[in-house]
């Protein structure tokens, strides 16, 4: 029996139930070991380069802040790194969650109709439209974000129009303001909101809405009482998949904003790569991770869908 045949799990037929091995004992031992062998390389990689670094990150956050890359770090269990980092950058944390939160709301407002339209109204154009949703991600993330500098430029038509309509002052700007950063965030992660929503709405049976209509519901009622509740899992998945990367993003803030708009990501970036303050950077990273996890946990409990992802 060749290795690859065992890889495919082809030995033993298609039954769900425990198999009594046909083949001699040595082959069946081989077969029992096979899944572990298959999982070993990938599992080892993930353990070494995901799980272990996570532990190392926590350890680094507890290093003596007075060390440096040159002189090395001593492990001093400096728990005070945390409150110090938090105090110093609480505004950045707040800003990150604020921008990400605003962007999430915007993304829902923009993404839900799009997902709904593709799922329920698109008919045979469904696949094409889905490709269109994902297609913008084929260009480089950074290059796309830079394009917003052109779109929102002071000399561009968007700003011009807004000045015309007196939404902006005569010398008002969009670039280098929080508005630009939030708009950038909304844009960049929008497909992460649309796709889970689409996956959920696609399974929505149109006949449920017909039944609601038959039972005297107005379209608005049908939406709030039938569509919205049923789309909740997709909404939860979408907002999580959107919020998590958005909160940790710092590219939009850097390219479209000023240091006044900098998010926690920018701080961590400079901590590690500019100021070379590893313990502080690590502490901030851990804080970010914990904050995100906490919010996800609370959100999932409230929304009531445990197995969403």
């Amino acid at each position: 029996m060749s290795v690859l045949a065992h890889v495919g799990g082809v030995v033993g037929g298609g039954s769900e139930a425990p198999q009594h091995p046909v083949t001699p004992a040595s082959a069946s031992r081989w077969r029992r070991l096979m899944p572990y062998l298959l999982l070993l390389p990938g599992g080892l990689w993930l353990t070494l380069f995901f799980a272990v670094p996570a532990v190392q990150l926590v350890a680094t956050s507890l290093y003596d802040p007075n060390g440096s890359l040159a002189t090395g770090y001593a492990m001093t269990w400096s728990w005070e790194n945390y409150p110090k980092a938090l105090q110093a950058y609480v505004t950045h944390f707040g800003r990150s969650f604020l921008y990400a939160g605003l962007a999430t709301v915007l993304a829902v407002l923009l993404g839900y109709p799009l997902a709904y339209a593709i799922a329920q109204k698109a008919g045979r154009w469904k696949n094409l439209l889905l490709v269109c949703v994902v297609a913008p991600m084929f260009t480089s993330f950074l290059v796309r974000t830079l394009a917003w500098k052109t779109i929102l430029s002071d000399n561009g038509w968007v700003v011009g129009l807004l000045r015309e309509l007196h939404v902006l002052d005569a010398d008002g700007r969009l670039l280098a303001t929080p508005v630009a950063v939030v708009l950038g965030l909304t844009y960049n992660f929008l497909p992460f909101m649309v796709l889970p929503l689409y996956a959920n709405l696609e399974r929505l049976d149109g006949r449920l809405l017909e039944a609601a209509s038959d039972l005297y519901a107005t379209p608005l009622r049908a939406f709030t009482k039938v569509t919205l509740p049923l789309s909740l899992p997709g909404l939860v998945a979408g907002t999580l998949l959107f919020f998590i990367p958005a909160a940790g993003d710092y590219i939009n803030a850097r390219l479209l904003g000023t240091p006044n708009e900098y998010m926690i990501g920018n701080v961590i970036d400079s901590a590690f790569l500019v100021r070379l303050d590893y313990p502080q950077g690590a502490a901030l990273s851990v804080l970010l991770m914990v904050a995100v996890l906490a919010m996800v946990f609370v959100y999932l409990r409230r929304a009531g869908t445990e197995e969403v992802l």
Partner: protein
Amino acid sequence: MGHRLWRWVADHWVMAIGLLVLGYLFLPVAVVIGLSFNRPSSRLSYDFNEFTLDNWRNPCATSDMCDAVVRSVQISFIATLVATVLGTLMAFALVRHRFRGRSAVNLLIFLPMATPELVMGTSLLALFVAAGVPLGFWTIVIAHVMFCLSFVVVTVKARLSGMDRRLEEAAMDLYANEWQTFRRITLPQVLPGIVAAALLSFSLSFDDFIITNFNSGTTVTFPMYVWGAAQRGIPPQVNVIGTAMFVVAILLVVLSSVRGRRTRVAA
């Protein structure tokens, strides 16, 4: 007449908004394509200035950029290869075999997809520094394989679990032994999933910035080049690369759907 118009609006307003949002999604892409034909008035200007084909004629005018692109392609290629192989093996284990510790494995695969890139990047950096590993090309590859693995597993797993097991039974019923069945039936069936996973992995790796930024040392990939150039002034050729990426990806999608449709059309 007014009523008919009202009905039409009522039926179509959702689609109209949807299309508007789609337009919003494509706007920057259109700008990127447009800018690739632009001769900027100055290095730091982002406005449209003058139409030119020079950028396309000399995409590598700034040699640093093309070096960065080549570097990115090399890294992504190796990372894709490794991630696809490792991830496919894991997917087979998850779908076709019974073993203990399944939930632990699922967690290990799921977590990287849910963790902010910032946290993954900085933790890897912390590890490399603590272990004294020099940062550069290979640390980037390692990082990329790490975050691509999960996506490969999920993609191949989806394809594999949707596969009809009866096909393999039929093959064995028709005198194919286990190896022949795997080679002639299982593998061809899973292949689209593996290819999709590889493409996904490549694009994730090529476009990655955050994790790469923390683990690259002095090596420069294309996204990192753009980031650095944002300070110094962006050469318009950057948009050429952006447009080229887009066009290649679109072509691949079109090609695969044409192939798919051809095998479905009645002879």
